[in-house]
């Protein structure tokens, strides 16, 4: 299978998204905060006259450290545009296998967004689902229950 993956870093870990799900990679310079939203929603940003909902990926995965980088991955989900903030966007690589289950848990937080391990031209990597990150931690709590 020759699917392309976008490699990025969240909270110090290397992860991948399907390149098909990714519209573009942007740098978020100005953020409009949205009071009242859960903390993983960083705010709104404008991209080519469209409003993006900016999501802090690390917070959405309930990881300890918040995302500090400027880079974000733009993806469309249910008709809305989102920007997933990541620590860094690293590379594009070719997927060499279907996602496979990782033995045991990949850790709380990661668990609900993880779609398995993918062998890639850049080595084995954890594939994340952008939609699950957008849904936020509340979603994972529901799933756990």
């Amino acid at each position, binding site marked *: 299978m020759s699917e392309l993956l976008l490699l990025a870093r969240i909270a110090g870990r290397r992860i991948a998204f399907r390149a098909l799900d990714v519209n573009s990679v942007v740098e978020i310079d*100005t953020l*409009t*905060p*949205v*009071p*009242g*939203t*859960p903390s*993983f*929603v960083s705010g*709104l*940003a*404008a991209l*080519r*006259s*469209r*409003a993006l*909902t900016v*999501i802090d990926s690390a917070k959405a995965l309930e990881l300890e450290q918040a995302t500090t980088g400027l880079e974000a991955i733009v993806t469309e989900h*249910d*008709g*809305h545009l*989102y920007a997933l903030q990541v620590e860094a966007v690293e590379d594009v690589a070719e997927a060499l296998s279907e996602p496979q289950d990782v033995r045991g848990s990949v850790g709380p937080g990661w668990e609900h967004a993880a779609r398995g391990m993918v062998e890639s031209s850049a080595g084995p990597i954890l594939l994340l689902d952008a939609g699950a990150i*957008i849904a*936020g931690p509340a979603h994972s709590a529901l799933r756990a229950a």
Partner: protein
Amino acid sequence: MDDLLAEFVAETREMLEALESEIVAWEQVPGDKARLDAIFRFVHTVKGNCGFFDLPRLAKLSHAAESALAEVRAGRRQPDSALVDAVLATIDRIVAMVDALEAGQDYPEGGDDALMAALEPSNDDGGEAAALRAQSVDKGQANSPGRDGPRSIRLPVELLDRVMSGVSDMVLARNELARRLRDYGVEPTIDGPFERLSAVLDDVRDGITRMRMQRIEHLFNAFPRLVRDLSAELGKQVLIDVEGGEVELDREMVEMIRDPLTHIIRNAVDHGFETPAERIAAGKREIGLLHISARQSGNRILIAVSDDGRGIDTGKLADKAVASKIASRAEIAAMDEDEKLALIFEPGISTAAAVTSISGRGVGMDVVRANIERVGGTIDVTSAPGKGTRILLFLPLTLSIIPALTIECCGQRYAIPRSYIEEIIHSRSGSAELVQMGDAWLATVRGERIRCLTLAAVFGIDQQSGPQRATLILVRLAGGDFFALAVDRVLDHEELVIKPLAPAVMATGLYAGTSLLDDGSPVLMLDIAGIARKHDLISDVHRRVRRELPGLEHAVSAENGVPVLLFTGLDSRRRAVRLDVVNRVDKVEPTSVTLTDDGARIVLDDKVFPLAGVNRGAVPEGRFPILRLSDGKCELAYAVQAIADSAQIDGEISPAARAGEIEGIALVEGEPVEVLDCHWLFASEQRGSAVLNPATCRFDGNDPWLDTILRPLAESAGYRVVSDETQHADVVITTNGLGDGAGSDADGAGNRIRVVSDPDIAGREAGTIYRYDRAGLLAALAQARMGRVA
């Protein structure tokens, strides 16, 4: 369907639409020749067209109707009610057949002969014709597809929306580009084309906006027929009076209010009006009057439906509310009339004793209200027992562009839909007193206590600081509830293109959407109703809250402020004009303006109107808005740069120092605004039309005062000033003493006015006027002109 046939269907529809109201009018006055002719023409044309197609049944029917009407036209037959019913039934049948034709179906056989028999003069069984009609109406309603305007192409609204949002995005992208261009400095080779692109885009946006607009006539035209059929069925007599059909509003909005309005009218005819006998017993005319009007006021449309029926029985309403457990007896007892009246919007309330086929189908005013609110409108009902009911709908002009007020809170900008905003109060100004009740704040405005929310606290940013140093925005919710929202600062009025928000943001219940400001930054539109709901200021408890604010609505309406429209004149100054005289706002091409010596003229709808306001600045190069002012008889246009908003002048208007276009200065939201003197405007324009053949006036004497000071006055009084002494002058004005001027005969002047600089002399000597006695001078000039005419 082949093209010719489609053309025939479209043409028939077009004629029918024009005919709807004629039919009802004709029925009321069957002897009305003009109406009869219109209906005759219709059936005649249908018959003629049928000849081109193989449509024998249509041809036969229209022929029968035509013959019957021809008899009436020739005076050989009286248009009795049986005939009227038969003709209407035939027209209905024609409509149904045309509908079937369009859908490609066969119209069910039979029934035609009965109709044609009903059209025969010998038939005196009116009941049968009426029954036939009712039957055909039912059939017609059952399978009539949604009809479109005349000669129009049908477009899915989604497509229009897509184009519209595409254009809106283009505008935003253009704005962003413009900003970048400014940042990078001026580049003439780019600037020119960009300007052109920008202008074209504005035009396109204008066109798209208008593409979505439709005259409300399309909706109103169907009402006379609806009312006629309903009242016939219910044994009532109702006269319908429709006004303001030329008001335009968003196509989709027209569709959205179709059902609510129909429901309101059904209600009025069914429950509102008494039977003729009851009306006579109550000392009223036996025919009830249903008045439907539409008016544009600022960027809102006001639709009023009023009847002179029995009014809403609040006692019954209250009993119903208790019976259906909407409110307790104690709650009802504490309510005033208005609050009881508002019960009509509660789900599950219906005042009709019996459920009829017309209304009371379980669709209540609550659904009507929900539908109106869904499109961003509000609904208001007032009623006087025995006198009638009036229902007012306030609607925004379009669905996707929302006029909003941008505000600042905690360093961020937010937008509030302007429709909610009742008033803006600066708490520092002292007009609102703030007190703390536990953690809650109450604002006292004109003696009323209003719950006050601090936006920062609503957001959970700052729970501590109170609203003392903030600006209070008095918000009126659809149900009539008030609360005050404290924000840091009010920024600006903006028209925002609202886009939906991601679910994670919507889940907060605080925001209704987002939009991009001109500088490209996103701004959140607050969901005022959601915020109120979150703080228990509406829904279940809203009656309680309303009771906390007794009489507030009266307090606000009793302010008796002067409603005005704020605008920017061509000279970029802020002005206001009394809303009552503004008929409508139009956008015009500069080419429709003609500048003449005695003022500007504008061509609107093939008529020439005086155009005021242009002497204050050049006529804009692109399309520009005009205000169409009317004094009831005359209309004139006033050119402006931009329309700002509607507002109220609560304080006094301090009069201007001299008579002119400006009546005076008033404070609107703390800022001075010039108020147009409509009397002066109309007076001077009347004069404008009278000056076509101006009287002449000559100044006698060398006093420069005459030429510099008096000349404009004489000209404004309709005189042309001539300087040539040999020329005939209708009036001569002199500053010379009585003795030293030449005799009036020598001037060849009919009249002589002497002005003096000493008021005492003017008082003593007949025929002299003090030079600053404006009224006296004008009277003398007017008299002189009268003399000329005589």
